[in-house]
């Protein structure tokens, strides 16, 4: 469904035939390696992360943004966007999130801000799917307000001691390395943040898995760092430049969230339409009632609008133009829509929509994270409003 009739439109600015072939390959992988296992994994609240990351790495799903020298197939942001869209169709928001967080968060920061040595050490294995990466910014006491983080990194001898806690960290409990944001100048607010790479097993690092309403297969973690020592080479990029670095990478995180939300919304709408067609009430399929036909039309329309808006943001980004406003628009609009679609999809399922044996409840739970993660809808609207000098 992702390659809709619209495929011919954005191709003018984005997709080539090689991209279409690549998309078909990713789709086959998702259909073979993920979809058949989703129910089992969701029930278990877990999935064989090591094994799946390795397979995805071999498929090249983590390397579209990087040059061959790091094991990548790029750099090609459009290809990376396609991978996101196809992963979003896997049927489990948690699996898509785990693979996506690795693709777009921790390792991506190492590529963007790391030295050649850091890239060789952490990025190459990550691209191959041999290691798992994560990003830790949010804290128990601060989410949207990134400048207010309290985790502290103090210079000691040849390295740093980091103390603080981090919350809601996707892949945190299974990660081999985590990019951690910490204050190196506690007086300075936004201008006192730096990024560090903390490896699993570092002394003073403790990780606890958090239970979540959706994304239940993925491992969401709380990290506690107590005088956690990292060597000097763990500093990623320039000291005190962490905030602008985060803001830069947040753009890609938000674009892929929008892309994933549109693809997931299509999938959920298909699910709802299929159910509505076969479920009978008052002598005809529920989907044949005019009120449902019009609701489906409305949702499908908004999905196409979200698609166009998201591709607009992507097109600008790929062209190297600043697109903070457009990316923020796409992020909130697409993720809110995904959840609205899931809520309507749940509604047409009636009582079955409320039962765990039907997949629609998962779409409903999983999609709820969209308007929260990666910058809330409220923060997106702040950014957009401020872009108009308000």
């Amino acid at each position, binding site marked *: 469904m992702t390659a809709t*009739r619209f495929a011919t439109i954005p191709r003018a600015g984005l997709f080539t035939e090689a991209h279409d072939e690549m998309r078909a390959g990713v789709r086959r992988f998702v259909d073979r390696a993920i979809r058949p296992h989703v129910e089992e994994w969701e029930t278990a609240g877990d999935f064989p992360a090591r094994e799946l990351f390795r397979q995805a790495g071999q498929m090249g799903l983590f390397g579209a943004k990087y040059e061959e020298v790091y094991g990548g197939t790029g750099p090609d942001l459009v290809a990376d966007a396609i991978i996101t869209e196809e992963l979003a169709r896997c049927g489990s928001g948690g699996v898509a999130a785990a693979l996506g967080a690795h693709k777009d968060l921790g390792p991506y920061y190492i590529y963007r801000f790391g030295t050649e040595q850091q890239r060789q050490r952490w990025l190459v294995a990550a691209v191959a799917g041999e290691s798992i990466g994560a990003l830790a910014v949010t804290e128990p006491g601060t989410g949207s307000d990134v400048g207010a983080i309290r985790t502290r990194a103090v210079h000691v001898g040849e390295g740093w001691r980091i103390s603080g806690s981090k919350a809601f960290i996707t892949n945190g409990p299974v990660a081999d390395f985590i990019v951690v944001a910490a204050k190196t100048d506690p007086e300075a607010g936004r201008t006192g943040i730096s990024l560090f790479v903390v490896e699993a097993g570092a002394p003073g690092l403790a990780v606890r898995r958090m239970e979540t309403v959706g994304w239940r297969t993925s491992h969401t973690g709380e990290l506690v760092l107590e005088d956690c020592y990292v060597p000097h080479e763990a500093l990623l990029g320039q000291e005190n430049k962490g905030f602008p670095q985060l803001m830069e990478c947040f753009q890609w995180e938000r674009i892929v969230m929008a892309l994933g939300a549109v693809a997931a919304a299509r999938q959920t709408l298909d699910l709802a*339409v299929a159910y509505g067609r076969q479920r009978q009430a008052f002598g005809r399929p529920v989907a044949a009632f005019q009120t449902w036909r*019009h609701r489906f039309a409305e949702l499908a*329309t908004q999905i196409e*609008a979200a698609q*166009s808006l998201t591709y607009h943001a992507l097109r600008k980004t790929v062209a190297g133009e600043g697109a903070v406003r457009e990316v923020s628009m796409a992020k909130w*609009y697409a993720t809110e829509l995904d959840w609205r679609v899931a809520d309507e999809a749940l509604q047409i399922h009636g009582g079955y929509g409320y039962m765990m044996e039907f997949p629609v409840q998962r779409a409903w739970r999983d999609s709820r994270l969209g308007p929260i993660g990666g910058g809330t809808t409220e923060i997106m*609207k702040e950014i957009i409003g401020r872009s*108009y000098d308000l």
Partner: protein
Amino acid sequence: MLHPLFTPEHEEFRVTVRAVVESEVAPHALDWEREAHFPDWVFKRLGDLGLLGLRYPAEYGGQGGDWGHAIVLAEEMARCGSAGVGMAVAVQSEMATPPILKFGTEEQKQRYLVPAIRGEKIACLGISEPDAGSDVAGISTTAKREGDGYRINGRKTFITNGARAHFCLLVTRTDRNAGYEGFSLFLVDTDLPGFSVSRELNKLGMRSSDTAELALDDVLVPSSALLGEDGRGFVEIMWELQGERLIGAAGSVAGAWLVFDRTLRYAKERTAFGSSIGTFQVNRHKFATMATELEAARQLLYDTALAWERGEYPVKEISMVKLYAGEVVNRVVNECLQLFGGYGYATETGIERAWRDSRLLRIGGGTDEIMREVISKAMGL
């Protein structure tokens, strides 16, 4: 960067059109709104400038352009400050005349298309009837074969340009028993005996354009008045409606952006409780929401127009553009009226005019409800 629908040449064209609209049309807009009429010279002037034939081939006096140009014109016409003028121009250039190029004979093109492109003959399009709007197949205007021609009887209503048109592209039934295969299009001169303007309609918005109810009583037309194939009229008019919906949405979305810009300026200047009202978080988020939805509408329009330009027939997506634009534009303009407060309700700011004008998009060219019908049918529902 430009959307792939446009090239830098389109943007140069935009600058030219904007200058014309701002210097020659906009200064009169308020008068025309008050008079509920704009003069015929507008057609002639735009025709002289080549703006009524943007997508038509040079051999008929057109500019040989594409849908990118048509959309630029619709967007820039919105700047004239009177949406009714833009609508009348769109009827002339993108609704009543494209079927002549597509289905017409050489003689019909010479007789109607060429002068319409010049702005010398004003065109109208007759689809709706007093008793049949959304249900196009329910129209009852009939054209009966008689001798070498046809005898036409019926009523048409809500006809833009109807009171002053020189010819009408008319949808009729030629065979009552043939279902959807029983419709035919005609090009009818409005000065023929039996053709009359039964009344002019007073409207809530779009007041500068004229809207008429037409009566056809035993109007005799020759066979050469038949446009396209006898019996193919329904399919032909459905094709026409696709371009109509795109161009209608383009003008309305552009108009809403202008209202958004004005309201943004106002919200920065206007203070209350010690700060400009735009900086209240609730209002800042309102602007963010409006801008997001308007941008989504615009991008969906551009993507779809590009598909249409490239020869696809994306009926579902065009209906989506029309539906989405109608909803968003109305929501946005209503919110802007709210932000303007009392000044929004006062005639002098023109915000209430945009509010009234934009309401039509959810009715004309196919209602929201019909759009949802078309979309859900295309989804197999």
